[in-house]
């Protein structure tokens, strides 16, 4: 709270500096732009009216409302604001480790004395590496410099998750602008983030199969918790009271589960687990999803495709010969989006730690080189993630009534020369930061390095 207060004067200065106008207007008309609506055909010379944070009208030759600022957007292209479908932007430090986390989490404070070290987890009942109750929406940092950097790169929205545990917590869809965390949140909880972390040799779970067994037990426990609570609520007399469990509460509050799945073997494994536990699942990773399009299509489970394409590690021994399978894994990963689009599997992109907008666009272009159409690429940055998170009724495309999140560029997004001219987030216009003052990228790097 303190930090937001400190920021207000700064914001006021910025507003004053932008123009002589006292306050930004309620309404805008973007005139004569190429409007890529995504949910409907592109308008080559279209207009968009924005009012009170929402899109009021989309069409050709719209009459400017009397109170609207008119922006001549001739030659510019308007996209729905891009969405990072799985992110930790604005969540510095992501989340605390679970009650018995040991060894694996960077965010964990070093134990000062052995007495302070958490005891080894002895089984699922100790809820190891679990913080299902941790809500990203409660931990948004509006001053995180990455917000402006990524907004300048065309992103208006991110689905942010804590990521530090097996059950890391509940994500939130946030808009990338605002001085208060509350006004940035578009929807929460967005789902529960799961990882396949292990807890070291002497604390459960100490193996991949231990982690999977734990996940299975926790979901069973969550179902039982619901049942036991409901039976007890209607017959409290003469029944033993079921114990309160924050992790089961958190799990039952999560509308979907994000499961890691990079290789085909892992995709197959997670699809089976999701089916067995009847989870509403979303897979993230997807590097080898091109090999598994059939089962993915059949399951209806969407995939969040990492934009960090696998590469040979820089420190790898130059003399070491990679087997064909590894080479193929690297070479064909960028073909995943095209393969998923062809098979009709819903997918969206996520930044996966890429710190520069330029790198994100470079990765997208490799997907295009591997056969993805531009339309499908834009969809995977806009409407598809909105659909995956169940918020396509309010964002993800340019339609009247939706949130006015727009990315306005100098031309086709996949043209090297194209620049972001400005963005609208919740109906507010944001100009990119001038090139020479653009230092937040370095700031991001520094925080990463100190982690």
């Amino acid at each position, binding site marked *: 709270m303190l930090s937001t207060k400190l920021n207000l004067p700064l914001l006021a200065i910025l507003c004053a500096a932008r123009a002589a106008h006292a306050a930004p207007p309620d309404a805008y008309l973007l005139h004569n732009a190429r409007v890529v609506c995504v949910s409907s055909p592109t308008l080559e010379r279209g207009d968009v009216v924005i009012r009170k944070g929402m899109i009021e009208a989309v069409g050709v030759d719209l009459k400017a409302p009397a109170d609207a600022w008119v922006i001549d957007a001739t030659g510019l292209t308007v996209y729905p604001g891009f969405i990072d479908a799985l992110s930790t932007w604005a969540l510095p430090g992501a989340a605390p480790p679970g009650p018995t986390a040991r060894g694996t989490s960077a965010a964990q404070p070093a134990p000062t004395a052995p007495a302070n070290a958490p005891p080894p987890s002895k089984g699922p009942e100790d809820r190891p590496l679990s913080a299902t109750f941790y809500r990203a929406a409660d931990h948004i940092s509006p001053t995180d410099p990455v917000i402006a950097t990524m907004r300048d790169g065309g992103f208006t929205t991110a689905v942010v998750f804590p990521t530090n545990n097996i059950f890391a917590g509940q994500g939130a869809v946030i808009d990338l602008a605002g001085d208060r965390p509350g006004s940035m949140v578009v929807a929460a909880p967005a789902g529960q983030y799961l990882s396949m972390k292990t807890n070291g040799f002497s604390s459960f779970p*100490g193996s991949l199969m231990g982690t999977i067994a734990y996940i299975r*037990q926790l979901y069973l426990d969550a179902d039982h918790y619901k049942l036991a609570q409901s039976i007890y609520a209607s017959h409290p007399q003469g029944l033993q009271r079921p114990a309160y469990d924050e992790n089961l509460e958190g799990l039952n509050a999560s509308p979907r589960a994000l499961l890691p799945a990079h290789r085909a073997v892992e995709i197959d494994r997670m699809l089976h687990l999701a089916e067995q536990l009847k989870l509403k699942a979303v897979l993230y990773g997807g590097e080898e999803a091109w090999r598994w399009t059939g089962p993915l299509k059949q399951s209806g489970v969407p995939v969040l495709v990492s934009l960090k394409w696998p590469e040979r590690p820089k420190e790898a021994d130059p003399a070491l010969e990679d087997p064909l399978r590894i080479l193929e894994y690297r070479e064909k990963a960028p073909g995943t989006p095209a393969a998923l689009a062809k098979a009709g599997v819903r997918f969206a992109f996520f930044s996966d730690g890429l710190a520069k907008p330029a790198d994100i666009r470079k990765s997208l272009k490799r997907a295009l080189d591997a056969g993805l159409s531009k339309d499908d690429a834009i969809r995977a940055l806009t409407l598809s993630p909105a659909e995956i998170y169940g918020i396509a009724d309010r964002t993800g495309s340019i339609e009247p009534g939706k949130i006015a999140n727009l990315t306005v560029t100098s031309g086709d997004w996949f043209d090297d020369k194209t620049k972001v001219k400005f963005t609208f987030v919740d109906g507010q216009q944001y100009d990119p930061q001038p090139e020479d003052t653009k230092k937040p990228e370095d700031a991001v790097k520094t925080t990463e390095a100190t982690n």
Partner: protein
Amino acid sequence: MKLFGALLCCSCCFAASTVIQNATVMTVTKGTYTGSIVIENGKIAAAGPNLPVPAGATVVDAKGKWVIPGIIDCHSHIAAESINEGSISVAAMVGIEDVLNPEDIAIYRALAGGVTSANILHGSADSIGGKCELIKLRWGKDAEGLKFQGGPPEIKFALGENPKRRGESGFGTGPQNLRYPATRMGVEDVIREAFTEAKAYQASWKEYEDKKAQGKVAIPPARDLKLEPLVEVMEGKRIVNVHCYRQDEILMILRVAHDFNFKPILQHVLEGYKVADEIAASGATASTFSDWWSYKVEAYDAIPWNAALMARKGIIVSLNSDDAELMRHLNTEAAKAMKYGDLTRDEALAMVTINPAKQLHVDHLVGSIEPGKDADLAIYDGDPLSTLSKVTQVYIDGDLYFDRDKDLAGRPEIEKERKLLITKAADRAKQDAKNAKKDTDKDKDKEKPSR
């Protein structure tokens, strides 16, 4: 996909029926003959010296070659992405099923050694370890496709040095992480305690069912994935594999098995020859090494006559690998029992075919060449019990999964593909470096005027 394609194409050329002709056939259970095997719908339809060829059948001329039932390895750790949940002494909730890796190259290599089925065991870190998985080496299929259908589920127990090591004060993870038990006595206690807990769990369900039958309101017990497998053991539905060495611990587990109503497969059982009468009387079976010894203190009293001596006492004995390399020549491991112990050819071969099938309760499906059984066959270019012989073809369920000639012929293609991918990746890296240089040059140009 070319790699997989090349290896998979073997199983694609599946015809309605296949006849292997002119071979020396070692049925293991019904003697040896020169003649044919007719395969229909994945099963052995007929086996004998003079068989008519069904119309449209694919004929394989095996003149000069030998056919044996596909080898079954009763103790293996391939094809899994984790083996030990070593954190806790009772880890019955974990299972190899969850972490099968159908792309482990060890599968293909074992297949090339005539192995068609393998018992993939949890490791020996825990008194009660995880669930095991019997697989067929269907190279190219997914995890589900590896599973052996028709056998009972299994679990792993372990006695002696490995499970107690974590409790010994010299163990490296610090005193706070020491785990009970630290002695052989403790191992027995952990196992008995776990079964006692499982009995209580069983009773809690019965109590709930009784209450429900009486029309009383009751909350069902929470399902416990750790105790459910132990209940199944006591109900005779789950096979127990017990890792053991010394005669004292062998006798101990036989008493425990008697008390909790199961007949284990004794794994390793290197001192089994000392207590063979007791093992035979208990109904337990034994799976051992041909001639590994002295690799740890509890293995000092091993002798290469162990398998034969136990077999002569009427115990069903198998020889296993416990190792991805040894797994590739289990035929010669069996042959050693002829040198050490004077077993007949059939008795020796039985130790890697029908005997493990009996131990795993799948002898109605595999383990010998008899009509009605799965067509799991290994073809050798000479006497299968000779070190000079090589596997030329392997069939599983009547499908060709390994063909030595095709493998050799396909290698140049794989190498070509590999080189191509390496070149592509190198070219891209060069291009990226060039672009990066261009960018920095541009930046330098920009900086100049400001200086």
